[in-house]
């Protein structure tokens, strides 16, 4: 049952003056390029970390594997846009996507996503190994079935559990290079996994109307703003501590430790600021959301820089 009582029915939005034939850019937009770029970056870091850990892989095969992971991430995005077309059509943030705009029919988005999913898993199996390919297939399945189809519309814990899909790319990449997924890969997973709730709840705090209109049970709409801010703060503290873990398991050095400690400190401070902001919390939530993107990028960049320096010394 896709539409809960009280949930708006899909609204077909077509504000085009141009003919309603999709061009290459519309199909590219189905891949959620911004999400894809973050996936590629975190996967690349996982791959370089595995090489710094002693793994050896021909550069061309590593590039092909990274490409396969990117296509898999894009395929998940297209499948998500197919399934969530009704939600996307009532949210200001997503109303401009190709399916709600009426440029790409839902069935085409599904076919495009399904085709690219199969292609990406097959390519990863060819360029690396079956472990990585199976992990990529599981990631796509988890994002579409567990997150999009099940959790997103049924529980405010949707992005907590669903966040696993976005956290898996470094593990997939590590497995692509080594054929295994050791604890170091899962530490990178844990950082993204713990980062996801405060990131999306900060977004939900200042976009609460959007989610309420779409009937998506995000934490602020279900548990209230105060409870959400408390949870954001709790996750931020755990994230700040987890961010230090790469140093303590020996996969990162003092440079990383200093960067992670500083980033974690700022994250906790901004979460605390949001917690104490009372009813006028949208500005601080927006600030936290913006910083969370910088945080994830910078913490993975610190791992990457240290590993690249180590590989060239």
């Amino acid at each position, binding site marked *: 049952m896709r539409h809960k009582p009280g949930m708006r029915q899909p609204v077909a939005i077509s504000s085009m003056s*141009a*003919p309603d*034939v999709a061009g290459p850019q519309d199909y590219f937009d189905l891949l959620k390029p911004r999400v894809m770029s973050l996936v590629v970056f975190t996967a690349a870091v996982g791959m370089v970390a595995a090489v710094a850990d002693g793994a050896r892989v021909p550069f*061309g095969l590593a590039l*092909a594997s990274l*490409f396969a992971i990117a296509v898999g991430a894009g395929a998940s995005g297209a499948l998500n846009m197919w399934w969530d077309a009704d939600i996307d059509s009532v949210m200001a943030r997503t109303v401009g996507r190709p399916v709600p705009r009426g440029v790409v029919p839902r069935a085409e988005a599904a076919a495009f996503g399904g085709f690219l999913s199969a*292609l990406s898993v097959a*390519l990863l199996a*060819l*360029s690396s190994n079956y472990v990585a390919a199976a992990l990529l297939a599981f990631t796509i399945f988890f994002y579409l079935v567990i997150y999009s189809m099940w959790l997103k519309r049924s529980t405010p814990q949707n992005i907590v559990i669903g966040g696993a899909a976005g956290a898996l790319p470094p593990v997939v990449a590590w497995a692509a290079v080594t054929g295994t997924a050791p604890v170091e890969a899962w530490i990178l997973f844990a950082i993204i996994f713990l980062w996801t709730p405060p990131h999306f709840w900060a977004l939900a705090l200042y976009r609460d109307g959007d989610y309420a209109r779409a009937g998506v049970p995000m934490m602020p709409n279900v548990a209230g703003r105060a409870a959400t801010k408390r949870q954001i703060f709790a996750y931020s503290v755990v994230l700040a501590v987890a961010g230090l873990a790469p140093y303590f398991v020996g996969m990162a050095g003092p440079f990383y430790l200093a960067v992670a400690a500083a980033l974690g400190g700022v994250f906790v401070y901004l979460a605390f600021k949001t917690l104490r902001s009372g009813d006028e919390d949208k500005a601080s939530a927006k600030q936290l959301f913006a910083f969370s993107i910088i945080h994830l990028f910078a913490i993975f960049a610190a791992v990457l820089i240290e590993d690249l320096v180590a590989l060239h010394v």
Partner: protein
Amino acid sequence: MSDDELARKQRRRRNIAIGLGVAGFVLIVYLVTILRMQANLAAGP
């Protein structure tokens, strides 16, 4: 330019993109196969 012409142009661009995508995939599979053969040969029997 009329809507029909725009639609035709858009469809043509899409078809070219599909063609390039398929050709690119074939090329990647070919290159990956060669690289894997090289890696396996280098690893020895």
